[in-house]
Structures are given as structure tokens and as C-alpha cells.
């Protein structure tokens, strides 16, 4: 060991490159790692070191995150030189459809499936989602507590909705939920992840084949029609269906469970939500919880294809960038007192869904589902409470999407 009295501990050396992701170790499970906050205070960009020794740029401030995510010289193609590898030694199998492509191919494929997610089409589904939510709450209230809210409520909602929209039989949800869980677990081996994704892809390929032969009124049939028209290969269609099936699951489910846990820690905010009949306040609460929570905690990753000067730095072609939206959403330049959950603030400019051409295509659906949930659950179960100590809640630090593994609740 070097003499620390002369040089100081290694992590304090001015040229030390911090490791990413950082340990969470914060007092509050809803706050980003303290080290990330410190980096944001120091400047908008900094180099970090990943598990494989590569050193991409970490972008911590809101303005620079938005600028880079909206920049055509920044590529989402995982095969580009410099693309930051993921947070653990996993190797993704192939490309998860258009989210890992650039325009114009990205736009061509994405536009094939954006129609059903338009705001008014999604609005038309609201009564059906309300029935699903009410039905699940009825079942909960009819049985004994405590229950695991993830299992009986948070996961079934997005799962039922995306299955309905896609035309995937919900009865088979145990099968694909088990596999999608493995696919988003950072501690799964590449082999395990690959096997899980092959299982679900095989299943969806079979369903797509059926829809080619016998179209129905669902999104899978729409995708199948593109195959028939020669606009998509069967492989591309399967990847697209896989993307839509898994993207809706872990994200919304974690927003429901983690959002509920956050509200239980902020009783004044929960009371506001419980007592309001104003859909605007419910919508505002959804935006604020999207801003405040940080379920996409490993950041959005890109490769830079031409030199870009930004935030006092030059990012060279062939270097990687990671935009950590959770810390962007806590940028005090944009959101006053950012670490406070305040459902009455205007949080609509958050980057929880990303920014630029890849911004989440399911966001109108996610918003509507969350509005129904946050606007219903706490009214119908006003005594809802955590059935274990906060310290005993297992947080998903081991998954690409942050949240809780279980949420024991009683009432």
C-alpha cells in the first residue's frame, strides 16, 4: 500500500476514474448513489470505468443528457465501436429489435407498432384497465393479508394489459414471466439469459406463425401482416414481439410497487392522492413518481460516431456515453429541491422515458395504467401499509430495472 498520508486514499486522487455502477449505500432507497450526486455537482460529464475496464463517459446533468440523446451523431447500435458494455459480464443475444438500431431502419420498424400506443387509442382502454385494477383489488380484499403486492397486483396489471394488446394468451404468463425475470437479472449468466430469451422467442415465433395463418384484431396480427407483406422477416417480427412483451412488464410493475412503497414513506403525499378526485393531480403524481424513482438505474447507453463537443469536453468518435436519467431527473437546475417527492410539482420534463428518437414508445400506455393504479389503490384500501420493516424490503440492485422483489402489504 502507498503511504496514504502523502497521496491520500486512491479514490480521492484527482485523476481516479470512478467505477460504474456505484454502490447504492444511500440512506434512502429512492435516492441515487451519493457518489453519483457528487459527480453531478462536479460537472456534467466524467469518465467512469466499467466492469470490463472500458472507460465511457458518464453524463450526469439533465441538459447534456437530453442534448446527447437527441443527437444524430450518437448511436444506439450495440455493435458500434465504443458502445458501453452492460453492467455485468452479460452478453446480449442478438439485437432487441429497433431499440438497438439507428434511423432510418429504427424509424421504419418502430413506426410499424406505434399506432396502438397513440394517446387516444390508449385512452379507449382505460375502462378495461380500471376493471382489471378493481378486480385485482376485490380479490385482494376478499382474501387474508398480508400479501405480496408485486405478485397479486403490480405485475398482473401490465402483464394482462400487454397480453391483451399483443394477443398473447395471459394464461401462459407464468411461463414467460419466469423467463423475462431471468432476462433482466444482471446476476444471471449469459447462458441463462440466452436460454430464457430463446424460450420466449420460440414461443412468440409460434404464435406469430398462427397469426399469419389466422389474423385477429391484435398487435401480433399486425406484425404478422408485415411478414406476409415482405416488410419484416420472421426473425425481425419475433424480436419485435419479444421487445413489446418484455418492455411492458418489468417497467410498469416496478413503478407500481416502488411507487407505492415511496408513497407509504411520504404519508402527506399519499393523503393528497387518496383524497383527490382531480385527474390532473393524479396525472401529476404519475409524472412526479416517474421523475423521483429511478427504475432505469443503469442508464441509457450509446456510442458516439463523430466527435462531439459538449459540457466542456470533446467526446471522440468511437467513445461510449452513459446517460443516467435517474440523476438527470434530480438535477437542481431543472427541478427545485429535487430529492423531495412532491406530487403537486410540474415534473413533465423528466427523462424517465429517455429522450430523442428512442424515447419509450409505450409511454402513453404506462401513464394511463399508472394513473388508474395510483388513482384507485389508495382510495379503495386507505389503510394499506407495509407488512415488514423497510430494512427488510429486498431492492432490485441486481436487475436492469430497479424496484423491489416483493412488497409485503396488509390493510
Amino acid at each position, binding site marked *: 500500500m502507498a503511504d496514504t498520508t502523502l497521496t491520500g486514499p486512491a479514490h480521492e486522487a484527482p485523476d481516479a476514474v470512478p467505477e460504474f455502477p456505484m454502490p447504492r449505500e444511500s440512506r434512502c432507497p429512492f435516492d441515487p448513489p451519493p457518489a453519483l450526486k457528487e459527480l453531478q455537482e462536479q460537472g456534467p460529464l466524467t469518465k467512469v470505468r466499467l466492469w470490463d475496464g472500458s472507460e465511457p463517459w458518464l453524463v450526469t446533468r439533465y441538459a447534456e443528457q437530453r442534448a446527447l440523446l437527441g443527437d444524430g451523431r450518437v448511436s444506439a447500435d450495440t455493435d458500434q465501436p465504443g458502445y458501453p458494455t452492460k453492467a455485468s459480464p452479460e452478453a446480449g443475444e442478438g439485437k432487441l429489435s429497433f431499440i438497438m438500431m439507428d434511423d432510418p431502419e429504427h424509424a421504419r420498424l418502430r413506426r410499424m407498432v406505434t399506432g396502438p400506443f397513440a394517446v387516444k387509442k390508449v385512452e379507449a382502454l382505460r375502462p378495461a384497465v380500471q376493471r382489471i385494477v378493481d378486480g385485482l383489488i376485490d380479490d385482494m380484499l376478499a382474501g387474508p393479508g398480508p400479501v405480496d403486492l408485486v405478485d397479486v397486483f403490480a405485475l398482473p396489471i401490465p402483464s394482462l394489459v400487454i397480453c391483451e394488446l399483443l394477443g398473447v394468451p395471459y394464461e401462459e404468463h407464468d411461463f414467460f414471466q419466469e423467463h423475462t425475470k431471468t432476462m433482466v437479472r444482471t446476476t444471471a449468466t449469459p447462458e441463462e439469459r440466452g436460454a430464457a430469451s430463446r424460450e420466449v422467442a420460440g414461443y412468440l415465433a409460434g404464435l406469430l406463425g398462427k397469426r399469419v395463418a389466422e389474423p385477429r384484431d391484435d398487435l401480433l396480427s399486425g406484425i404478422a401482416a408485415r411478414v406476409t407483406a415482405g416488410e419484416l422477416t420472421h426473425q425481425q417480427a419475433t424480436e419485435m414481439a419479444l421487445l413489446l412483451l418484455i418492455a411492458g412488464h418489468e417497467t410498469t410493475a416496478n413503478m407500481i410497487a416502488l411507487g407505492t412503497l415511496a408513497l407509504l414513506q411520504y404519508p402527506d403525499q399519499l393523503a393528497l392522492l387518496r383524497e383527490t378526485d382531480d385527474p390532473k393531480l393524479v396525472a401529476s403524481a404519475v409524472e412526479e413518481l416517474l421523475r423521483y424513482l429511478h427504475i432505469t438505474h443503469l442508464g441509457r447507453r450509446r456510442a458516439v460516431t463523430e466527435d462531439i463537443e459538449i459540457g466542456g469536453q470533446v467526446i471522440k468518435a468511437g467513445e461510449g456515453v452513459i446517460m443516467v436519467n435517474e440523476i438527470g431527473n434530480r438535477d437542481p437546475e431543472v427541478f427545485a429541491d429535487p430529492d423531495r417527492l412532491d406530487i403537486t410539482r410540474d415534473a413533465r420534463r423528466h427523462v424517465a422515458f*429517455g429522450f430523442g428518437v428512442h424515447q419509450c414508445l409505450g409511454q*402513453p400506455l404506462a401513464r394511463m395504467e399508472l394513473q388508474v393504479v395510483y388513482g384507485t389503490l389508495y382510495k379503495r384500501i386507505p389503510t394499506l401499509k407495509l407488512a415488514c420493516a423497510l430494512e427488510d424490503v429486498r431492492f432490485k440492485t441486481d436487475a436492469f430495472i430497479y424496484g423491489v422483489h416483493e412488497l409485503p402489504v396488509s390493510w
Partner: protein
Amino acid sequence: MKVELEADKCVASGQCVLAAMDVFDQDDEGIAVLLDEQPADEHLDGVREAVAICPAAAIRLVDQ
């Protein structure tokens, strides 16, 4: 004030519709459609919000 929309940039996020329902809608593919090029003053705040949150920078509000 006049609203300009570059529909070929649009990525169908629906944010403009949420911010200003009277000014924007979406077509069958989810691509934004301009309902009102010269919205009344009461809708301008919503349009400004749409300009700020459109992820594709497809919307502009210009002085005539």
C-alpha cells in the same frame, strides 16, 4: 404565433397531445397531426410545453 410540425421527425411519443389536446392529435401510426396552426392564446402554454418535451424536436412555435 404559429405552430410548425415536422411530422417526418415525429417518433409518436404522444407528448404533444397530452400537453395540448386542442392543437395536436395523432394519426393511425401515432404520428403527430397539427389540428390548429394558429392556436388561441389560452393554448400557447400547452404548445410551449409540447415544444419543450417533444423528444424528437419536431415542434416549433414561431413569431409571424
